[in-house]
């Protein structure tokens, strides 16, 4: 029973940060119809920026809590700036081209960011563990957990709820939904579609970077981080359905649980299991579990 609980909790912790990454990816796809390969790079960027901030704050002798807050703020700032710059400066030039061309553009961005992070932060692993002890250790049904890990679950719930509320209960969100649904019609109703594009992309980058920041204290930052994360979030959004927020949540939980189960029962099979699930979903429900009815040929 304890073993089962361990798997579930580990899976949920894993799912929580994966959900935040995938949420950004699915939003960007929903609004801009871009399958963003560079999304994992934004996650890595967030993690690196967070680590630098934490290390800087610690060097000034400030408490870990200050480091935690500073890291969230700096990542939010840098994430949205990078997102805006990329959308306005680069992606804008390729709108109207084929979906696959845009995919390749983001692949180029992925290649560029991969080396840029190497240039800035070097090849050696970076650690920023100070905030990890912030929430102490928690005993939960006879299991000992690091408080920080458990905190990730409500944090991601909060982010998920905020996005859902923002999309469904605010005017701005309704406009975004309108653009997702029919961009030409929204434009003719006076929506400034290019602003929605810029905002949505920046927000997507922000979410990826935020997830990177939240996990930064748990992991070691090193090259290759982005390509590992991107294949996980690909799997999640495809399982859940491209462009669906609920789908991202369910996909993240499935992938998190699958990962935790395989880690405990069959280590190293995790990628195999996750992609098997993804392939199965694509075969039987190509539009993902949360299918939106569209007339598109698949």
């Amino acid at each position, binding site marked *: 029973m304890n073993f089962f609980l361990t798997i579930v909790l580990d899976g949920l912790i894993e799912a929580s940060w994966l959900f935040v990454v995938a949420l950004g990816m699915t939003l960007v796809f929903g609004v801009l119809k871009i*399958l963003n*390969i560079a999304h994992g790079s934004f996650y890595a960027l967030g993690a690196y920026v967070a680590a630098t901030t934490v290390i800087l704050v610690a060097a000034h002798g400030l408490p870990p809590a200050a480091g935690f807050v500073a890291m969230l703020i700096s990542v939010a700032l840098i994430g949205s700036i990078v997102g805006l710059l990329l959308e306005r400066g*680069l992606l804008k*030039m*390729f709108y109207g*081209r*084929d*979906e*696959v*061309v845009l*995919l*390749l*553009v983001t*692949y*180029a*961005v*992925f*290649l*560029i960011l*991969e*080396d*840029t992070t*190497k*240039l800035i932060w070097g*090849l050696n692993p970076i650690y920023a563990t100070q905030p990890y002890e912030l929430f102490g250790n928690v005993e939960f049904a006879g299991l000992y957990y690091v408080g920080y890990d458990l905190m990730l679950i409500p944090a991601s719930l909060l982010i998920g709820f905020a996005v859902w509320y923002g999309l469904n209960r605010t005017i701005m969100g309704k406009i975004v939904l309108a653009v997702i649904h029919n961009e030409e019609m929204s434009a003719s109703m006076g929506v400034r579609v290019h602003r929605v594009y810029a905002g949505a992309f920046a927000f997507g980058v922000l979410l990826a970077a935020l997830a990177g920041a939240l996990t930064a204290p748990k992991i070691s930052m090193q090259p290759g981080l982005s*390509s590992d994360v991107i*294949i996980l979030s*690909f*799997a999640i959004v*495809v399982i859940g359905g*491209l462009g669906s927020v609920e789908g991202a949540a369910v996909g993240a939980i499935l992938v998190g649980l699958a990962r935790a189960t395989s880690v405990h029962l*069959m280590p*190293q*099979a*995790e*990628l*195999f*299991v*996750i*992609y*098997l699930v*993804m*392939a199965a979903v*694509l*075969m039987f429900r*190509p539009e993902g579990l949360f299918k939106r009815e569209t007339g598109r*040929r*698949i």
Partner: protein
Amino acid sequence: MGHGRHHPLIMILPVIGALLFGRVLPAWTLSLATIGASNALVALGVVVLARAGNVSFGQGLFFAAGGYGVALIANSWGITDAVLQMVIGAICGCLLGLVISPLIARYSGIFFGMLTLALSMVFYGALIKTTVLGGSDGFNVGRPSLFGISFVDLREADFMLYAVAVVTAGLAAIAAVILFQSEFGLASLAVRENNLRVEYLGISANSVIAANFVIAATLAGTSGALALMAQRHIDPQFAYWTTSGEFVFVAVLAGYQSVLAVFVASLALELVRSFSNLYLPNTWQLALGIFLLAVILFLPRGIGSLWTRERHRRTERSLAAPTAAEEGAPT
């Protein structure tokens, strides 16, 4: 359509030329050209798929299947012959392609890409896990021989592989030109333009896509065997998505109109990579990314359009086939 006005078999001449030229090339260019030709084979498969409107992000699956298939069979049966190994690689790729093609033919666009990516990642995950095959480290294989001759001299061994690579690439290129000019090749272009109309004309769009998929898989399997012989080592990285991404990269660079461009693009990429490795060891992906963006922006039909477009203007023979090739977006 590359070589529309010549007979495809005329391409045997440059192949022989390249073969003889290899005698005077320095050793490092030989192995570079071998890798370039090997990657070009997979990229040619990506082009074959792209002509029917699909982009595969998982050709690494067949690349790795060819490589592992050859490595296992060669190790257990003691086959060292280079040509035989290529044939085994091609068969491995082809068989796997035959198994998967009926499933994949129903998809197009982004879903085609995602499913191929997923399948290659399943294979990658399985390979990582299989400790018998060396897990993530992979394993080494011996030097190949040719027609019973084993090459002790390193330069001779490199030249032998270069020769095998050039001949294979030449044969594949000739086959591709014939294929692209054939009725089937034109039907593939039509599937990309409008698959519904193709169906009305009595051709099954799905079987066109499936056949193209098997061709691409066979090419990738052959290439896997070649890469294995050139590196004498194999690991799961063969199936990783960044490997597949590179093949798509070469295909985009080349454009989808000229077979020759695929080989030029692949060689160019290998040259850029080896020079960058020397002079900018940590920024070659950066250079590659900027290069890719520039090509998509300024040469949307790839470097092949540099010479095919020129010729169309000169001859002004706007047959149905070349215009279809020209108008299609470089998907």
